[in-house]
């Protein structure tokens, strides 16, 4: 087995760890969101590495299916986070005590 998968694997782990640290250490929404995405890329890369079954061999299709699903999830979660983030950026024109929304 060549060292390429190992290299990719280590890279994946590093990405994952960097992302985790970033998400826990920072407080800005955008930074944290990016960090989560970096971390996510690390995990998905790990799956890609797992699919490798040696030179000349067909890669295992299952991890690829998983990666695709994971990407879809990551995209939608990011979109949701951005939407919520935009909401928070709005100027505070509306009344907003927590009791307000429940009153009608």
């Amino acid at each position, binding site marked *: 087995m060549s060292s390429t998968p190992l290299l990719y694997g280590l890279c994946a782990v590093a990405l*994952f760890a960097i992302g985790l640290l970033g998400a826990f250490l920072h407080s800005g929404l955008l930074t944290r969101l990016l960090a989560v995405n970096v971390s996510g890329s690390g995990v998905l890369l790990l799956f890609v590495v*797992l699919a490798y079954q040696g030179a000349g061999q067909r890669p295992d299709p299952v991890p690829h299916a998983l990666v695709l699903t994971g990407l879809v999830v990551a995209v939608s979660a990011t979109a949701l986070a951005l939407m919520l983030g935009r909401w928070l950026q709005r100027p505070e024109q509306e009344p907003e005590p927590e009791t307000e929304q429940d009153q009608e």
Partner: protein
Amino acid sequence: MTNLLVWPVLLSLAAALGTLIAPSNAARIATVAAALSLWSVLLLLSAVIAEGPQWLILGGWPQGLGIALHADPLSALFLLMSAAVCLAATIFARRYVEHSRYRSQFWPLWLLLQTAIYALLLAADLFNIYVTLELLGLSAVTLSALGGSRAAVQAAVNYLILGLLGSLLFLAGIALIYGRYASLDLQLLARVVEPGPSLWVAMALMTAGLVLKSALFPLHFWLPAVHANAPAPVSAVLSALVVKVAFYLIMRLWLDLFNPAVMSTAADLFGVFGALAIVWGSWQAMFTARLKLLAAYSSIAQLGYLFLFLSLVLVMPEGEDRQLLLGALVLFALSHGFAKSALFLAAGTVQQYAGHDRIAELRGVAGQLPLTFFSLGLAGVALIGLPPSGSFLAKWQLLSTTLLAGQWYWVAVVVVGSLMACVYMFRVLSVAFGEEGVATQRIHSRREELPTLALAVTATLILGLGGVWVWRVLDVGAAGGLG
């Protein structure tokens, strides 16, 4: 009759689409779907009791490739709790969201959340679990932000990010498992896993992710703001079900999949953090000013009990005693599910009625809402663990196990935790006896209080008087976990 497995998921999903197509009938569609889901879960449970665990592999794929669904007594009991709580909360929500700004967004998300809960409880392979976890997380986050206050959205964002991290940790664990065993199917895996570094790392990653989602101390910090600021029916389901299904997964994985690799130190860690959660959560609940925040902190404490239970179950040898304690664990989880959802719904009614939920200023509201406060009282009985609630029986079993084992520290934790629960619950209930005098905000209908009462009665009377049924159902599957 394996088709029974798809119905809870399918009904909720179809109803979610239905509410998008026919928004004007959304509330009705949701109610019917919730009722039918409960019915299908009851059928499923009776099938599980009669014939043993149920299986279904969608699309005719071989095992290990297709999406597999599975129900055994444990998952069926959790499904039953989920379906019942969802039905009550749905009926409650009909009036609660009727005039709100977020009415049109609420129902599809609400049904999507239920879909995710049912799918997760039925999932039979790891990747499925990951997907349903994400679906659950996304719909829960969006629902919790619906209230629209800055505090709610801020909390939701935080919840989302941490939820994503939890899922990624879980996913990383899955990657390791797949890399080692080339399978994701829980049943197949259970046969082949063996203790070793790769399994331990995978266990640690997956457990860390799930612990974050189930808000075990010290990873609980995101929970209070989310649960206290979401709309009341959402809080009810978040506290009663969403954190609990994450706990369910931990239990499922540790009892079935990781069983050969369980080390007593790991189990003890659950116990230690569970105990800290009990004390810390109760402490916060004793002094917090708002009713919903109190309920949220109480959830942290109650989840602590579940982890304490789990730590004891994990190290017990197979046999009757373990089965007894496992039954107590499940009974405690069910009681808490019903009691906590009742508490949140009651808090929602109080908040709508009084315009706030600051405990110290609620004097006099009780006179206007006798049923709600009665439900609060019943829910409190279950949360403290007094008879005749289900959690009383569970605590009896917990005390019995720890006393026999001479584990005084756990006994002390349970006693102190119960006393603290008395303090925070009766802090609310003593308000009920104040003099009248708060101006009413709107005409009130008794009917709105009924779902709350039904949940509280289930936690305190039905699960208490019929608690033995939970043990009997679990014994049906005692023969062999997932197998």
